Each structure stands twice: as C-alpha cells, then as structure tokens.
C-alpha cells in the first residue's frame, strides 16, 4: 500500500501542533535558563550572544528558544512520521 504519511500531507499537521509542542518546551527551557543565569540588569543576564530582554522591543532569549525548539520538534516529528508511514505501507503490502 502507498505511504500515506508523506511530507506533503504531514507538513501542516506538524507545522501547527508539533511546532506549538516544541515551542512550549522551548518556553520552559528558555525561561529556566534565563532565570538561572539572569539576575542582573538588562545587559548582564549571564548568557551569551543576546540580551535577556531588549528594553526597546522586549524581545529576547526565550523567543528564540521557542522558535528553535519549535523547528526541532517539527523536524523530529516529521522524520518519525515519515518512517512510520514507510513501515505501515510495508506492513499492509505483506498482509501482516
């Protein structure tokens, strides 16, 4: 039987629910890191590469962590689901 779990069919399913799931985990990770390290002022949060929060835009470390986790979770889920699709298609072919 054909593989029903192709990237084309999975894209939006995993873009929305899986991305949200990843972002949720990223939000906790980001907030935990920021809280563990950042007890100083804006420019002195203890991390590298960016400020804890930019006072002009209020954007900062957690937002990026959420996006990175969201992408990571979506990619992992898509690869796993594609593999599932291959196994399911093979199983149906062999009348398992």
């Amino acid at each position, binding site marked *: 039987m054909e593989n029903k779990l192709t990237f084309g*069919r999975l894209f939006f*399913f995993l873009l929305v629910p*899986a991305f*949200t*799931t990843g972002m*949720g*985990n990223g939000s906790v990770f980001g907030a935990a890191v920021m809280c563990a390290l950042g007890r100083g002022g804006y420019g002195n949060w203890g991390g590298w590469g960016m400020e804890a929060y930019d*006072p002009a835009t209020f954007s900062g470390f*957690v937002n990026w962590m959420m996006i990175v986790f969201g992408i990571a979770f979506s990619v992992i889920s898509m690869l796993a689901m594609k593999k599932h699709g291959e196994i399911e298609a093979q199983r149906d072919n062999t009348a398992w």
Partner: protein
Amino acid sequence: MLLKYLFAKNEDIPAGSSTIFFGYSAIFWFVVGTGLGSFNAAKLAFPDFATGVELFAFGHMRQVHVLAVILGWISMAFAMTMMYMTPALGNTKLWSEKLGLWTAFNWNAGLSLGLILLWCGFTSGREYSDLIWPIDLVVIFGVLVPLGMNVWMTIAQRRTQGIYITNWFFGACIFFLIIVFLVGQSAELFNLTGLTEGYLTFWFAHNVLGLWITPVAAGIAYYTIPKLTGNPLYSHRIGHLHFWSIIAFYSTPASHHLLSAPLPEWLKSFASVEGVLILIPAVAFVANILLTMKGRWSMFVENVEIKFSVTGVLLAIPLNMQGGFQQTRAINWYVHGTGWIVAHAHLALLGMSSFLEIAAVYFGLQQVLRRKLYSLVLANFHFWFVIIGFCIYWISMTIAGLIQGAGKIYEVPYIDVVIAEHPYMIARWIGGTMVFTGNMVWLYNMYMTAREGTIVPKGRYAHEMAYER
C-alpha cells in the same frame, strides 16, 4: 424533545438519551464559553469596546467565561463520555438513563442560574470558585452526586471481569471532585478569611484542574485511541502507573500556586517538588497513547477524531513541561501573575483537555445517534480553526507574559508594558475568535448530523464510513 423522558419510566427511555442531552449541551456551552472569551479578549484588545454598561465590564464577564467553559463545556463533555463509555466498557447498560437525563437537566438549569447571578455580580469573590454557595450545593448534590451514582453503579453492574483504566479515572475523579467542591467551598460556608481563604481557593483551583479536567480527559483518550485505531492499549500497567501517580503527586497541597504568600516554607517546597513529579504521570500517559498509535499513524492525517485526539496528546507534552517547571521558585519568580499563566491555563483547558473531549463527543454522538457525520469538510474546518486559533492565542499570550515578566523584574514603567503588549492582545482576540467560529460550525455540523446524517448500519462504526459516499 428529550425533556419528555424526564417523567417517563426508566425502561421506556431509549439507551443513549442522556449521552445525547449531555453531548449537545456541552457543544452549546462551548459556543457560549468561547463566545464570551472572544468578547472579553476584544475588550482587552480594544479598550473602548463596549464601555459604559456595567454588565459588560471585564470584571463582570471574565469569570462567566471561565466557568461556562469549565462547568459547561468541559464537565458536560466529561459527563457525556461517561454516559456512553462506562457502560460500553462494562458490557452493560447505563444504570439509570432517567437519572442521567435529570442530571443533565439540573446541570443546565443550575449552571444557567449560577452564571446569570455571577454576571449580575453575585459572587463569592474567589477565582474558579466564584459561584455563591447555594449554587455550589446544587452542583454537588444535584449534579455531581447523581452523576457519580450512575457511573459507580454502572461499573458495579458491569459484565466484565476487570475494570478498564478509563473507568478507573471516571469513578475516582467524580469522587475527588465532590470532595474538592465540599472542601474548596467551605471557605464561604464557614466564613474563613485571609490566608486560609486564599489557600483554600487555590487548593480548589489546583485540584479542579489536576483531579478532574486533565485526568478525565486522559481517561477518555484511553478509550478513544484504542477504539478508533483498533489497536489494544499499549500497556495497562503504564496506565495504572499514570493513575496512581496522579493520585500521589497531583493531590498536592497546591501551595505552589501561592509561592509569594506567607504560607509555611516547607509546605511550598513540598508542593513544588510534587509539582515536578507530575512529569511521571505525564510521560506515562503520552508514551502509552502514542505507542498505542503504532501502525495506525496514517489515521492522524485521515481521521478527524484521531486528529483531535493525537493533537490533544501532543499538547500534553508542553503542558506538563510548563506546568512541572513554571511552579518552581526560580521560574515562578519570573512568570507569576503574567499572561504566561493565562496561556498555560488555555494550553490545559483549550489545548490538551478540549481536543480530547471534542474527539470523544464527535465519536460518541455519531455512535449513539447511529448517524454518520453530516460534513467531513466542516469537521476539518473545525479542527483547523480551533488548532490555529489556539496556537495564535497561546503563542501571543506566552510572549505577552514574558514581556510582563521582564517589565516586572526590571521595573519598566507600567504603561510601557501595556503599550508593548497591545499587538499581542489583538492577536489573542483573533485566535479566540477563530476558536469561537470553529465551534459555531461544529454546533451546526452536529445539529445537521442529528437531522440529516446518513444512518449507520448495525455492526459498523460511523468513523469507518467517513470516506464512503
């Protein structure tokens, strides 16, 4: 139409009547609850909207939205699933259809009265337990005790040897909820004030979520996923681990909700440690359900009930990651009292819990009515509007919460924080309105299913016929 059976003999009432009464009531309250949510969000996004009338003040309407969703939609959807799953899992009939119908009638009447009074300003003034004590007594003795009697007696009269994990959750959680209501409302009944009142308020709020809203939803998934996929549950033993670890770790003192309050430090630390241990039942549940899907993942893109169920299970992952860690002192210091918590609460109620219930209501109503869904297109429209609307809501409120947290910690002037949050408040309103729109379409779809859905022949499941014309 179902009201005529209220005074009929129990044996004359068709099986499934109370399921149908509860099912349509739940969808109706979902529309009402999300409609009120959309209205409230509009008031936050556009401060000049609907001003000048006291009844439309945010302070009057916010708790009506919360309780319409918790006691109207979620709890009635639970009752609906109990009315058809409990007998099905015990290979028997519901103990009393008549009692089920009366429970649904009392619930609708009592909740309508309670919410109207609340809207008019008759309130206990305590978050989540806002209803005044006479209404609480109606909920306890007119709704929860009869519901419990029906479920417990149906389980007792089962014709199967063991009790399936879903019925463990159903039977136990109704018992917990009765205790939670009795103890949680005692602050008002016995005029307890100050810290004691605050503590009891959040003991109630914590346990309504942790011993009712999330575990019953999980119990539902233990039924729907194996039923729809045709796979047996991956592990009953892991299911039992889930059940008992919920009992052990979630029935905590709840004082991690009040980390800044002058409660004993040991009590707060104890609650916080148990709050992290909630990851044990969470991982057990998610792993068990996702492993039950093995070999049937194609249904995730094809079957609307599985779409909702699996999405709900996926959303349990960030829910419990957030819940487990945001209540530790380090993170709570940052996010307490911000929109982050509002986002988290919606992740629990609208995300994880509601998605699992929506699937069960879709499946249960089709099964009991013996009618195929009127429109799969509308059902998919419902799914996408609810999931995209929820995601917009959750992301915007999480970011708004982080802004508030930053503003709080760094002592940014309050008005600057308000201005910075404005776009996210508009996004929140758009997301909430999408959920409301999706639910109105759902109500129409289920109304038309009852009226014009193709009749399902004996021996077939409605969802199996979804793609047959």
